């Protein structure tokens, strides 16, 4: 089963490649210093940084995965866009950004160096670099898989052409190129994919008719979260609130350098604080595309109008991730097919470019300059950044080939996400809001949290943990993979926080003078009173929160 691509579709795809390579070439002359190359010159408005912040997270993997996920979990998928994202984004903007931005660091590990010590920075930099490269490789592999199965494109051509294009434009323009292409991707995704959800909903008779034809378990956010058996995800409201809404969400949105780097590129503190707040409004709108298309696919599939193929990596299981491309094939005429495919292509490529631009910064500033050449000049670091981009891309391609041969490795690689981010959030939270957190506490807490997360993952993966352990760890004897993942993040956070506090109580802490500008109580609060209320971050954060509450109440 392949989707037919006509000449006009190829024209649209070719135009996309011409545009991103042209933008890279054009921006080359503006990427001369380290700040230019790694932080886009710290000159972006909150609109630009905000859209890039969102787009860095908005990869095609997420869109395809959650559209398919909606066919399984129903409206519960919206939790990942609403309670599982918005509070963390607002918290980052209002409370954490002043510490990040005011310390003029280049990366999140850079903050760990200032607040704690070099070993904590290196531990986090190494784990982040490995995670980023592996994720980039997986992204590349899955892109080639989707295009191979659905469009009949050759594996090797898909991977090398997209990886080559990314290498060219990031090497030329650095983060600025990545941000420009991420914003282009944002508009392409809305232009190319919103219509498929809209046409599908219209085809089924409108939004009310769509919802009326769905099972009760799929149409609520909280009403079916009282017991794990009442919803398809197999999780309670507590798991959603603690695992997703608190640990995983805050761990990702407030500490993952891939997204936070976009806020660092803002031109001033107010813009940096507004970056995630601006992004939050667009984040809340995404379920229109993702969940909308997923519910349409579920209805059509139930009526026998949308046959779902077998998963190429798990024979015998339905490949729900193919739902969105299949809807494109059903509703889009030539031209629009090209736009839809370009939107997915842009999503894959921008996701990979985001990983590579974050990797080159962390490698250059937190590993190369710390472990290899401490006296490197600014020009030398820019050169290292460019070389690292090419090396990072090649390592991603190598990872993709490994995943192609041994695709069960993907389960492990994707789990790395919660090994790294969940405990790091505990370290950051204690570091920013408690003066008593010590360097030794942070280092050993981080290691303990990562080990706890890894052990729980392996315990379930290798069937060491049975129903009894599942009841203790996940409050359910048969939790879904998703529920396990959320609870695993929670326990990693608890262990990291517990060990950090315990070790900090018996080890020496830094003086207040050393912590100035890095910890609450020793950092001046941002003074918003000089700008009108309409331009204050807190005003927009409250507006965002009101929309979030309204959406949750509406779909309760």
């Amino acid at each position, binding site marked *: 089963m392949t989707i037919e691509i006509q000449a006009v579709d190829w024209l649209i795809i070719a135009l996309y490649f011409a545009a991103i390579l042209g933008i890279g070439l054009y921006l080359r002359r*503006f990427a001369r210093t380290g700040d230019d190359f790694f932080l*886009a010159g710290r000159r972006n*408005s909150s*609109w630009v940084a905000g859209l890039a912040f969102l787009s860095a997270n908005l990869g095609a993997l997420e869109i395809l995965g959650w559209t398919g996920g909606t066919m399984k979990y129903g409206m519960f998928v919206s939790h990942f866009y609403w309670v599982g994202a918005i509070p963390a984004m607002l918290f980052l903007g209002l409370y954490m950004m002043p510490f990040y931005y005011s310390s003029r660091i280049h990366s999140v590990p850079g903050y760990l160096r200032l607040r704690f010590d070099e070993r904590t920075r290196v531990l986090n930099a190494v784990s982040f670099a490995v995670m980023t490269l592996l994720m980039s490789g997986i992204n590349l592999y899955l892109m080639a898989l989707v295009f191979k199965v659905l469009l009949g494109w050759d594996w090797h051509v898909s991977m090398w052409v997209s990886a080559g294009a990314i290498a060219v434009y990031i090497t030329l323009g650095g983060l600025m190129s990545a941000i420009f292409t991420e914003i*282009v991707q944002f508009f392409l995704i809305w232009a190319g994919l919103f219509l498929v959800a809209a046409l599908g909903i219209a085809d089924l008779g409108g939004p009310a008719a769509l919802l009326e034809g769905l099972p009760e378990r799929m149409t609520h956010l909280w009403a079916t979260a009282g017991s794990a058996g009442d919803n398809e995800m197999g999780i309670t409201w507590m798991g959603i609130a603690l695992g997703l809404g608190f640990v995983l969400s805050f761990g990702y949105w407030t500490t993952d350098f891939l997204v936070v780097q976009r806020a660092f590129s803002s031109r001033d503190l107010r813009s940096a604080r507004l970056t995630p707040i601006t992004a939050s409004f667009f984040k809340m709108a995404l379920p229109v595309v993702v969940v909308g298309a997923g519910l349409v696919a579920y209805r059509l599939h139930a009526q026998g109008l949308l046959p779902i193929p077998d998963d190429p990596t798990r024979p015998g299981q339905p490949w729900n991730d193919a739902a969105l491309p299949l809807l494109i*094939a059903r509703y*889009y005429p030539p031209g629009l097919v090209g736009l839809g495919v370009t939107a997915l292509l842009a999503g894959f490529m921008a996701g990979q470019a985001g990983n590579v631009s974050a990797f080159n910064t962390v490698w250059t500033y937190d590993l190369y300059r710390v472990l290899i050449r401490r006296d490197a000049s600014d020009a030398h670091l820019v050169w290292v950044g460019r070389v690292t981009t090419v090396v990072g891309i090649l390592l991603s391609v190598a990872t993709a080939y490994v995943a192609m041969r041994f695709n069960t490795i993907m389960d492990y690689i994707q789990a790395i996400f919660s090994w790294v981010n969940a405990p790091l959030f505990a370290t950051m939270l204690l570091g920013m809001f408690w003066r008593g957190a010590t360097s030794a506490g942070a280092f050993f807490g981080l290691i303990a949290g990562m080990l706890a997360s890894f052990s729980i993952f392996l315990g379930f993966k290798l069937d060491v943990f049975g129903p009894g352990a599942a009841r203790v760890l996940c409050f359910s004897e048969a939790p879904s993979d998703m529920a396990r993942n959320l609870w695993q993040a929670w326990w990693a956070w608890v262990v990291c926080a517990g060990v950090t506090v315990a070790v900090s109580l018996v080890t020496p802490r830094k003086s207040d003078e050393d912590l100035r500008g890095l910890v609450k109580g020793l950092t001046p609060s941002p003074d918003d009173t000089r700008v009108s209320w309409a331009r204050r971050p807190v005003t927009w954060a409250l507006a965002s929160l009101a929309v979030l509450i309204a959406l949750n109440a509406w779909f309760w």
Partner: protein
Amino acid sequence: MSEVHGPSEDGQTPLPIWFFVGLILAAYGAILVAAAWLVEPPARVVAVTATPPGLWWGGGMAVLGVVFVWLGLRGRGK
């Protein structure tokens, strides 16, 4: 929407991202409108609206693209 980037060290100012977004949307919009006129949709396509979607969606994208190009050019001078 204000400018994307201020001047670089030698005083050069990059064109705002809105300009590039506008160019791409306008070009894609024009191609979609032309395709809706010229290319017959294959039998697999389920027609939901009376007017081909490429026509009104592409038209909307083209108009939006022109607005973004104008915003981008206007923002550069500020």
